Structure formats: C-alpha cells, structure tokens
C-alpha cells in the first residue's frame, strides 16, 4: 500500500487497506444547487472525456484484489457486482440496491443461505454472456494467496472458506458452498447468520470473471469489463488508466451507472498539491477533471474559502469514519475505568478538530458510530468534556483512582502525515491532558511499524490513536471487529483494541446479525454502541469531512454518504 503523500487525508479502513483508491471523498457544495453552478447548461449530456487526477495509482486493478467500500469508484466503471450502492446524494446513497442481480438477495429463514438471480441480457465487453458460474469463479479466485488484498469477510462467512486455497491449487477445485443450479442462479451457504450479506455483495469480489480469460496475477492488466467502460490502456501498474465506452453494456440492465462521458482518463501518481492546484486552475482538460482520492488540506481550504468561484466548486462529503483514542485495559493504569474516564473528560475536542484541519474538515465525535442514520447512530456523550475539556472533573476522577499527584502515561501514534493518527493530533491531546495533571509522553512510530504494533495483542500499547472506516454503511462492520470478543486475534492483525470479550455484547452481535430488516438492525447497532460506550474503552474524537475540488465544466455531482466521494459513474462533462 502506498504511503499517503502530504495533505492527502488517507481514507483508510482500519484494516490498513486504502479505500482511497476506491472510495475517497469529494463533492457537491453545501447543498445540491452548487453542483449545478458548475456549468452554464446544468443538464448533463453524453460525450467528452472525463479526467481523473489521483495520487494513488490503481494498482491491483483486479476485482479479486481490490478492497473497496461498495465496489469502489473507478473500479465500479468496469466491474459490476451482484449488488451495488445506490448512486444518490446523502443518506439515500447509503442504501444497497441490485446491480447484476434482480434484487438484493433472498435469504432463507435464519439468513444463512442467500440466493441471487442474474438479470437477463448481461454481457461482457466482447459480447459473451455473463453467467452465474463466472460470478462463482470470481469469488473463488479471491481466495488464492497470490490474489490477496480483498476484505476478509468471504473467508470468515462462507462454509469451507477458512480452508479453501482458490482455484489454482488442486486444479479446478471449486468452493462447494457456492452453488450455481443454472446459468442465472447463484446460492451462497454461510456458516452463521449474516443479515448484511447484500452489503458484502457490493464488493468487487462479486464481479464475474470468465475463467477462459483469467491470467492469474496478470489479469489486472486487462480485466474483462462487465460495466459501462472497458480498459483500453493500463500503464505503469495502474499509474494511468484509459477507459472507453463498452458498447456491449446496456443502460437497460443498469439503473445505477449514468456513464455520460465517452472516455475516462485516470492519471495517478500526482502530488496532492498538484492535483488541487490543477483542479483550482481548471485549465484545458482539467476543466473536465475530478479527483477520487485527494481532499483539500487545511491550508488549501484557507485559500479556497477566500474565493467565491472556487468555493462553488468544492464538494463536501461524509464517509462513515471515526478517529478515536483506544485503550488497552490489559496495560496499567488503563485497567482502571476511572483513568480512562478521566482522559475522556480531559480531551479538548476543539484543539483536536483544529489539528485535524478545523471545523470544516472534521466534526467532533462523542459516539463511536459515525453520525449517520444508516449506521444506526444514537447520540450519547457519557463523559461530557464540553468544547475544550473538563479538567476539574478529570482531576477528581484521577484522585478517586489513586492518582492525586498526577499521572504520567505514554501515547502511541503514527508519524504518517494524515491528520488522523499523526503527531498533530497527539500533541493536541498531550496539551489538553496537561491541564488535568496528566503528563503525556509521545511515542511516534513509522506508519507500518505503528500498525504492526497496535494490531498485535502481544505489543499493543495501553493508550494510542486509532481510526476505523466503514466497509459498508452499517453498524456491523463498525462494531463487530472492534468489540466482538471472538474476533480477538492472538496471532495476526487484531482490531479488538480494548480486547473486550463480554458475553452480553457477543450475544447481541449474533442476534443483530440474524436480522434481515436492515433498518431494525441499524437501531439495535446504535443501542449497542451506546451501551459499549459506557465502558470508556475508546474516546471518540472526530468524524472527518471530505472537501474536494472539481473542474469548472463538471456536472451532475453526486455524493453519497456511503463513500463520501463524488461518484464518477454519475459525472458528466458535456
């Protein structure tokens, strides 16, 4: 994975995999009208070339290897999946809708078997028919070690998934838990109830791959398109991608992708400041340009807000994401809930938000779940610190905990320049805690080292900065990896930072997973978050806000709460 260049806020799922390649954030102005301010004729038309200016190259442009939320942005132009995200603004965009399939999936009674039927008349870029066997093959090849990179859910959920090695080993051996009774039907057998399976089916691993075209690790050079565009050129391992209209794609089978431009030119490996400057100048081809991975940094925002024309070309988006302080109660003195609570009271969220780029780029958080409906967000503030911290309450708690004369602790953070787990945030916390008599020593680690350290239960520090992003907009992938006691990983990447193993929490997670009514599930996730919050295993700090520039001739800007990013499949340049 690439190191974030300066000023790029990295949208990273806590699984250390960059979503920026696929999700990122951009957008429409403060309200929808701003999108229309872009051109004189607001109505989108077909034609033209859309330029995408990105910092991270589209490496691993293979549906098996991509780690996306909702199928990604540029990848979603080429790869269709069983289901996909709703391409609409705001909260509506956080819904899951059918894509290749006729519906979002039909579960059996306890949500352990999911059946999908493919639409009729689906073809690849060469006109051949897309079959359910191809979808099965696409899922299977993502199990191959050489095509790793995707999310871990398939391995955990599918019956027999844990031991399956992919189709290359044991020549042609398939995964028995995926059945294809006929050309259009596919059935998945899971080893436990998973009401959120439709969300999972948005990921690129559910893209059909024709077995005859599979070239293993070389497939990424020219993956076979099922979407509105096909890959014409792939230079320097995804540094430049040229996509052209796939004549065999039909809008009749695809209600989600608008595909206005005739051509999409993705140029990556650019410095983030260069991207923002080019978008701001908006000259030549850059007038028809967007970015799917580069936000405005604080300094750039300061410049942009002073310019009316520029400000009208800034899109704002919210991606389900939380930056927080994590405690490991196995390390003293954080075993004492009073110490954790004292820190929660002492935190100055105004300073932290400023360090993260100010109130336009970050919203203070008191809940672990992102402040969006689809996550089941339920407001709470168990340890009210106010705007700038409640030092006296913190001191009082410390006294009760036996630290009347103050306390010295070490805060571990990353040295990545991401304004998330970086030194800027750490020093803001250090300064606030000083007022409550807590002396904070900083331990800054190089980014990889930092991840290895916090994700290994043997080395996990007691007090550190962390963040978590949504694999899909629901409470499940947000709460389960962090608080499900059975997901504590002893020898590998562990995300249950508080090492919480509470039977009532585990049971409630199981119960919610059985629900196939996603609205009801969301409410229960929200309630669970509020309950876990009482234990002060984390101190939520802020939810980032994404602000991105787009070129002056760009129309039809749609930003969903699912990705928080301008959706390239909706953009028009004519």
């Amino acid at each position: 994975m690439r190191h974030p260049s300066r000023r790029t806020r990295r949208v990273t799922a806590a699984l250390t995999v960059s979503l920026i390649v696929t999700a990122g954030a951009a957008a429409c102005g403060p309200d929808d009208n701003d999108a229309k301010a872009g051109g004189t004729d607001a109505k989108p038309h077909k034609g033209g070339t859309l330029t995408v200016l990105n910092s991270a190259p589209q490496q691993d442009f293979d549906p098996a290897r991509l780690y996306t939320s909702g199928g990604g942005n540029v990848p979603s132009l080429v790869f269709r999946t069983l289901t996909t995200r709703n391409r609409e603004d705001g909260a509506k965009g956080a819904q899951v809708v059918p894509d290749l399939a006729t519906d979002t999936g039909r579960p059996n009674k306890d949500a352990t078997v999911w059946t999908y039927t493919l639409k009729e008349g689906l073809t690849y870029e060469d006109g051949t028919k897309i079959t359910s066997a191809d979808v099965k093959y696409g899922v299977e090849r993502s199990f191959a070690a050489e095509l790793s990179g995707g999310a871990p859910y398939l391995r955990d959920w599918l019956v027999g998934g844990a031991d399956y090695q992919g189709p290359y080993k044991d020549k042609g051996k398939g995964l028995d838990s995926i059945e294809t009774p006929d050309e259009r039907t596919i059935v998945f057998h899971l080893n436990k109830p998973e009401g959120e399976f439709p969300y999972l089916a948005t990921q690129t691993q559910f893209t059909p791959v024709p077995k005859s075209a599979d070239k293993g690790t070389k497939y990424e050079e020219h993956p076979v398109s099922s979407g509105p565009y096909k890959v014409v050129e792939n230079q320097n391992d995804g540094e430049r991608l040229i996509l052209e209209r796939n004549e065999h794609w039909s809008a009749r089978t695809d209600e989600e992708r608008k595909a206005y431009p005739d051509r999409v030119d993705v140029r990556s490996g650019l410095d983030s400041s260069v991207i923002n400057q080019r978008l701001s100048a908006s000259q030549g081809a850059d007038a028809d340009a967007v970015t799917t991975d580069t936000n405005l940094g604080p300094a750039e925002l300061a410049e942009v807000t002073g310019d009316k024309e520029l400000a009208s070309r800034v899109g704002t988006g919210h991606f389900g994401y939380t930056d927080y302080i994590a405690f490991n109660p196995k390390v003293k003195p954080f075993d004492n809930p009073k110490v954790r609570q004292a820190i929660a009271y002492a935190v100055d969220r105004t300073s932290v938000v400023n360090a993260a780029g100010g109130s336009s780029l970050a919203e203070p958080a008191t809940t672990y779940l992102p402040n969006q409906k689809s996550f089941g967000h339920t407001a709470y503030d168990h340890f009210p610190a106010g705007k700038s911290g409640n030092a006296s309450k913190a001191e009082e708690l410390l006294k009760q905990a036996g630290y009347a004369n103050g306390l010295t602790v070490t805060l571990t953070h990353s040295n990545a320049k991401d304004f998330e787990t970086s030194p800027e945030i750490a020093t803001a916390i250090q300064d606030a805690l000083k007022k409550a008599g807590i002396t904070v020593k900083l331990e800054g680690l190089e980014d990889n080292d930092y991840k290895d350290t916090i994700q290994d239960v043997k080395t996990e520090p007691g007090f550190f900065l962390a963040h978590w992003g949504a694999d899909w907009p629901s409470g499940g992938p947000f709460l389960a990896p962090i608080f499900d006691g059975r997901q504590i990983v002893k020898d590998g990447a562990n995300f249950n930072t508080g090492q919480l193993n509470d039977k009532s929490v585990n049971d409630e997670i199981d119960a919610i997973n059985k629900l196939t009514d996603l609205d009801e599930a969301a409410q229960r996730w929200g309630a669970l978050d509020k309950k876990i919050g009482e234990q002060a295993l984390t101190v939520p700090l802020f939810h980032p806000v994404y602000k991105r520039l787009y070129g002056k001739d760009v129309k039809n800007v749609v930003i969903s709460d699912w990705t928080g990013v301008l959706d390239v499949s909706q953009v028009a340049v004519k």
Partner: protein
Amino acid sequence: MASEGARASTETVLAPASGVRQFWRRLRVQRAALVAASVVALLVLLALAAPLLSAVEGQDPTTYHPDLVDSARGGVPVGTFGGLSADHWLGVEPQTGRDLFARLVYGARVSLGVALAATVVEVTVGLVMGIAAGYGNRWVDQALSRFTDVVVALPLMVMSLALLAIVPSGFPRPVLVAVVIGLIGWGSIAKIVRAQTLTLKQLDHVAAARLSGWSSWRIARRELLPALAAPVITYAALLFPVNISAEAALSFLGAGVKPPTPSWGQMLTSANVWYQAAPQYLLLPAGLLFVTVLALTVLGDGVRRALDPRAASRLSVGTGRKKEARA
C-alpha cells in the same frame, strides 16, 4: 563533493598559527567575520535564553490556543500578520495556535545543539581514525584509509534517513540524530588528520620522542594533538553549518527530532503548504535557518583565514559533503 573537498584539503598542510593572540588579531580585521560572529553570538544567546525569553513573552512552545485560529477556514491564524500581537510577538502557528516566537527560540536549541554534538562526534571519530591511520603501520593505514574512503562515498542524506528509520523509537531522538550525522560525516576530517599526522611523523622532535620510548598515547597527546588543532578547528568550523543544514533537512523529511519538540526543519515541513495562506509561518523559520547557516559559514571562512591566511585562497568553498545535505 566528497573527494573534491578532500582533495583540496589534503593538499593543504596548514601552518599552525603562532598562538591564540595572533588568531584573534587576524580574525578581528575581517569585517564580515566579525558581523557573522556577532550574529552567531546572538543566536547562541537566543537558544540559551529560550525559556527566559518565552517567559518574558508569557508564552511557551507547546500550549494550544484554539481561540486564535479560524477553525472554519482550516485553522488559519486570526488577525493580521499571522496573529501578531503584544502577547504573541511573531504570531501563532496555523491550526494549533501555538506561539511562534517561543517555538522559534526553542527550535534554535535543537538546531545548534544537535549540530554541535554532531560536529563533536565527527571531530572525535575523525581524530582517532586519522591519527591511527597516519601513525599506524602500513596495513593499519591501508585498512583504515580504505574504510574512510567508503564512508566518505556513502550518501549522507540517504544513509541517515534509512538509519533513522530502523532505529527503535525509544532512543532519545536529538542524541540519535547527532550521532547518525556524526558517524556518517567523520571521513573528511580523518583524511586531513591522517595527512597531517604523516607529515608530523617525519618531524625531528616527534621522531626523537618516539626514539626516546614515549608511548604512542603520550606522543599523540603531547606532540600530535597540539599541531593538529589548527586544521581540525578550521575544518570543524566549516562542518558546523553543514550539520545545521543536515539536521534541518532530516527534520524536514520527518526523520529528525519528534514533536512536540520544536525544530526549524520540522516547522518548515508543516509550513510548506501554508506558503499562500500564512506566508509568515514559513518565512520565519526559513529566514532564521538562512541567517544561521550563512553567519556560521562566513565565520568558518574567517576562522580559516585567521588560522592560515595563505591557504584560505586555495581552499575551495566548503567541505564537499555539504551539497548532499542540501540537495
């Protein structure tokens, strides 16, 4: 470049100036060097008095002032000239609102301190290796000289960056930075010391001392070191500003001292993006660094002229290693 500097300097057998008084006399007549010396003295004073000065101002380098920045506009300082006021003599840092004056004077401590320590390491290792090579037998000389050649050829920036990344973070950072710069940069001093030692060895009184059974240690201390003082001081004076640049460069790349310890190089990294929205945030540390390195360079040049007026014109500018620390 490495060999270029070395070539020029090994050719130069410096005549020891006769006494400290003569040195001062020669330094005093150089106007530029005098100005530079006063600037350096002022900077050292600033660094030493940093806690006192910021106390007079009523600020410290780490306290956040969220009220002094415009949060909605990315945290740009409120007010004119980057939030310049009677409380904050040079304004505040964007996003954090930390006092710039306090951060700059504390940053001077890091800059000067690390560079000084690195120079000490370079001189010490260079002296030991150089004397050992020059005074030892042919094999010792060959081995040490080849080794020195290799060290001189190691790319400074690249090596220190890489080394700083693999050392565990528990190690005190300023010390580490100084040691890394020092351990990679002693080569040129060792070369000069070796050349001088070879010449000195031939001199009658050293030979006599050897014949009369003095120990090597005693000879080194009594005969060699005093004679080596002039060239080593000259070279150290030239290395000092180079090390300032090196520390700033490493901090600039994020490999130097860690926050919240302020350092100029680190300030420049974060100021880099603010060149349009808050230019003074960038200009202040850049200007200070510029003045410091320039003053030290002019002073070093003056020291060289004063110690050996004849050689001054022949030596090309710099120590060779310099460029790399800058590019």
